[in-house]
């Protein structure tokens, strides 16, 4: 099994979720994160004082999938999350050794 971590633009979360369900992904976990990279942050000015906000709001999705689904998952995410603008984000893949479904105790791919 693999853990796919994708950092995307917040308004792309729902489209990506829907696209992934269609290719048979059973579940995923999302969290709000702050991203720093090539995309510039913005500056806020209060009473003349400038505050540079280096981090931009992003959403991180994490999903564990069977090895054979990795290709399609990455492709799906890429196509759905892409806007062509700088700041679209990244996809990373890590290896997962074990998985378990808490409710049933099932392990391995059954747990997904």
């Amino acid at each position: 099994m693999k853990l796919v971590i994708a950092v995307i633009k917040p308004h792309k979360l729902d489209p990506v979720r829907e696209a992934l369900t269609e290719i048979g992904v059973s579940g995923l976990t999302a969290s709000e994160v702050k991203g720093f990279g090539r995309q510039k942050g913005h500056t806020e000015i209060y009473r003349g004082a400038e505050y540079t906000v280096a981090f931009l709001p992003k959403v991180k999705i994490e999903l564990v999938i069977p090895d054979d689904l990795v290709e399609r998952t990455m492709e799906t995410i890429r196509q759905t999350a892409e806007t062509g603008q700088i700041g679209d984000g990244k996809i990373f893949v890590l290896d997962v050794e074990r998985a378990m479904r808490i409710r049933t105790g099932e392990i391995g791919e059954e747990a997904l």
Partner: protein
Amino acid sequence: MLCFAHIGAALTLSLLLPLPAFAQDALNSGDTAWIIAATALVLFMTLPGLALFYAGLVRSQAVLSVVMQCFAIACLSSILWLVAGYSLAFGDSIAGWVGGLDKAFFSGVTSDVLSGSIPEIVFAMFQMAFAVITPALIVGAYPERMKFSAVLWMSSLWLLLVYAPVCHWVWGGGWLSEMGVMDFAGGIVVHATAGVSAIVIAMMLGARRGFPEQVRPPHNPGMTATGAAMLWVGWYGFNGGSQLAADGGAGMAIATTHIAAATAAIAWMAIEWIKFGKPSLVGAVTGVIAGLATVTPASGFIGPMGGLILGFTAGIVCFYAVQIVKFSLKIDDSLDVFAVHGVGGIIGSLLVSVLALAVFGGGGLAEGQTVIGQLGVQALGVGVTLVWSAGFTFLILKVTGALTGGLRVTEEQEIEGLDIAFHGESGYDLGR
């Protein structure tokens, strides 16, 4: 106020309105109704108005500490006002510099004693609301870094040594009122005293960690705007109530007040739009407060035109005052108490001598007084008040520092935030 508002009222009411004969020597239930309502409005300015206005501007880890400081100061000031403050301000004058203790604990202020056309107890409570907000204004100078115990000591001493005497000079029949100083609702008594003291405190206390580059932006501008709106509404009671009657004078006071607030906000927005390309909400509401502080001493003496002029001036001058204090002088008067309230109050206190003229739609100066003459009195009043306030604030801080083992919190406490460090609470627990 006592003295001048009455002349104001007189000017206003004289002749044209057929006054019920007993107007000045019997209870007027209409006037009383308005001043009681005005008292509620002025209390509303501090709690929750000012508390929210300031709390929204700090880091989320200090939001509660700011609200707490406003509450604690409000409670302490109320008690001190009852015990001695009211008497020091409005008791029998000792050489025009301070009132005696004849009214300590409101003695003699029973429900059937009148002050003008309203019960004196109503007047005393109206004044209490002023004594509550003035030291609370100074909270904006020292958020996120002053010990709570120091805040309490300092504010208490300040109320008795700075606010009460100056209030006596101007409204309690003291030397300035003898000279005919014009301060309708507190440009000198409230805003000048608080403003200059704020600067002194900010300098003695030192800046927040990371000031000016690294400080966090306001954590909740919507909260600040909510507070500003409440201050605006409450200011109707602050300025309109200072007429101490429900009449055309009070009506004109709220008119000039409202117009100045609106104009100053637009001016501030315009500057930001031009300078930074975007007008901000925090900027707009800061403009509102600048306009309100500036029109305060003049509100009952001028006309709508005067309101426009003061508002416009306030928006521009206070905006640049903020830049100078923070970025040229590098003084961390964190929420700009001096630049907004101090500078505003001073401008208004001086310009009233001109704008009170009939040509500007004002009620005119006192019998036989000239603009220059009046301006001199105003300048003197402002000057002496600034010196007195700065001097005593300095001394008070020295004493307080000694009493509390230093005014300032530790760096760890400042990083963790005063909410947890000093009050054992956190502002927002929005998680599951």
